[in-house]
């Protein structure tokens, strides 16, 4: 059966036996986003940022994925962990938010939703299915009730409102830098630059993060998306300290 084959090939691989026929990357391990995601509040809105690498084991399945998904015009979600889990949870959250608003919101700001509503719905799904899901999410958005908000919903399904948060495998490398350089009430440009720099730093050090830096800025007038290609990112990789190499000499 399909399951038996996978178990056998994994065991064989573990003993150093190369597979007789080719192995399909998507069948060996579940697609995981690897990832670095973050969101931060600034004076008047929020900035969400993410890298764009999706991996299956060691193979990069998608080098230009979009991990910041729109729930409503004014509320977006960063996804990390299992791609299947987060994509499907996000689909459920969109549906539940629309149903809730259809029944409860009336004609107030059609197309928008309370950020806390989206965050709570996500948290309920994450908590009630904590044994089946592998999903870490960050909800960010702007609404008229509470203004700019960021909610972190890590593995396990807890929810906490925060001024900024990071997530994913690459977040480990930038906690210190973020804590040290974050300021309250940055301007929009400062916040976008700060998030882009943080993601670039994580990409430089985390193997599971890479590709382009995607940013989404949400404020009272709407939301806008950006993409920073490696040539436009802060040159973090070249700033990493290296021992200069003699040209034409032996690498040592």
């Amino acid at each position, binding site marked *: *059966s*399909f399951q038996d084959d996978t178990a056998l090939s994994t065991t064989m691989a573990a003993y150093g036996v190369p597979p007789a026929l080719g192995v399909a990357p998507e069948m060996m391990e579940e697609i995981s986003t690897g990832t670095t995601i973050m969101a931060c509040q600034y004076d008047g809105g929020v900035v969400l940022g993410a890298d764009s690498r999706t991996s*299956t084991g060691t193979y990069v399945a*998608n080098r230009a994925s979009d991990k910041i998904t729109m729930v409503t015009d004014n509320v977006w979600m960063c996804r990390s962990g299992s791609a299947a889990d987060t994509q499907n949870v996000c689909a*459920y959250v969109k549906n539940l938010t629309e149903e809730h608003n259809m029944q409860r919101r009336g004609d107030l700001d059609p197309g928008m939703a309370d950020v806390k509503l989206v965050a709570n719905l996500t948290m309920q799904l994450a908590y009630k299915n904590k044994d089946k899901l592998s999903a870490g999410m960050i909800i960010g958005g702007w609404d008229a009730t509470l203004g700019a908000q960021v909610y972190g919903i890590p593995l396990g399904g807890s929810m906490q409102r925060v001024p900024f948060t990071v997530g994913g495998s690459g977040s480990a490398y930038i906690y210190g830098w973020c804590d040290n350089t974050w300021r309250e009430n940055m301007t929009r440009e400062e916040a976008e630059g700060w998030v882009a720099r943080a993601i670039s730093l994580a990409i430089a050090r985390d193997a599971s993060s890479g590709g382009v830096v995607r940013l989404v800025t949400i404020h009272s007038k709407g939301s806008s998306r950006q993409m920073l290609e490696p040539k436009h990112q802060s040159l973090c990789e070249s700033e990493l300290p290296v021992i200069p190499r003699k040209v034409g000499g032996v690498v040592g």
Partner: protein
Amino acid sequence: ATHVVEVKPARALAPGLIRSVAMAHIHRDDAEERGGFNFDNVRRNEMLRGSGLAFKNAMKTGTTISGVCFAGGVVLGADTRSTNGETVADKNCEKIHYIAPNIYCCGAGTAADTEAVTGMIASNLELHRMATKRDSRVITALTQLKTHLFKYQGHVGAALVLGGCDVDGPHLFTVYPHGSSDALPFATMGSGSLAAMAVFESDFKENMTEEEAKDLVARSIRAGIFNDLGSGSNVDLCVIKKGEVSYLRNHETPNERTYVRSKGYDFPPGSTPLNRRNFMTATSATLPLNETVIISEGAPEDAMVM
């Protein structure tokens, strides 16, 4: 049927996730309706395994499948080798499946799963077209595939490259067995995906012509055929443009048999030595073996004597 089945909550994942799934006795029909799993066959299989039945390996496609968007449509490509363990089960199978007149889907992974899941979604979309009187959209097929695969948590081993051309333009998606998907301008899947992806990463460009796109996809599949053991035989292509689909079955056959015996294979009687003859007499309930047919018309020499 009103057979009462206990559904184990640890594996059940009903669509209404915010309702907690309690340990309960549920009718089999109810379980299906709620979207829960029915694991009766798992219990049956375990019991059979326990009594010593050897299971055949599920036939897998090994496979190289790929797709590319060009100016005005998509081109899908696939190899044609189907494997059962290390044997080639089918040298010329069809891996590009019909979903809708404007949507086709290449399938990698377990052959039965890809055939069944694409057939099911094709059927759903046909009913949907009849109900809505509109052409199907690729994202409809995508969402149905994703929700089905996610519900089965990766046990349905179908990895798909879905492509089509609808009212919103050309679309290309990859769908993974666990229920995630990616939207890409070029995509590969299967054991030969690395070889095919190498070709795409070198030579893909935006807004290609149809001929360039067909050539690129054919080259990517050939890369998989010649460099991956799980892929082989021929290249199938499918070009989908607005209002026009060309299914190019065996577009390239780079592995035709080189040496064929010119005399053919005609074995005269007596080629195989006879070891033993064993005749069984018919019972009175069956027709007698030696029946003579009496000819009422025509020449006796033309008659066939039974």
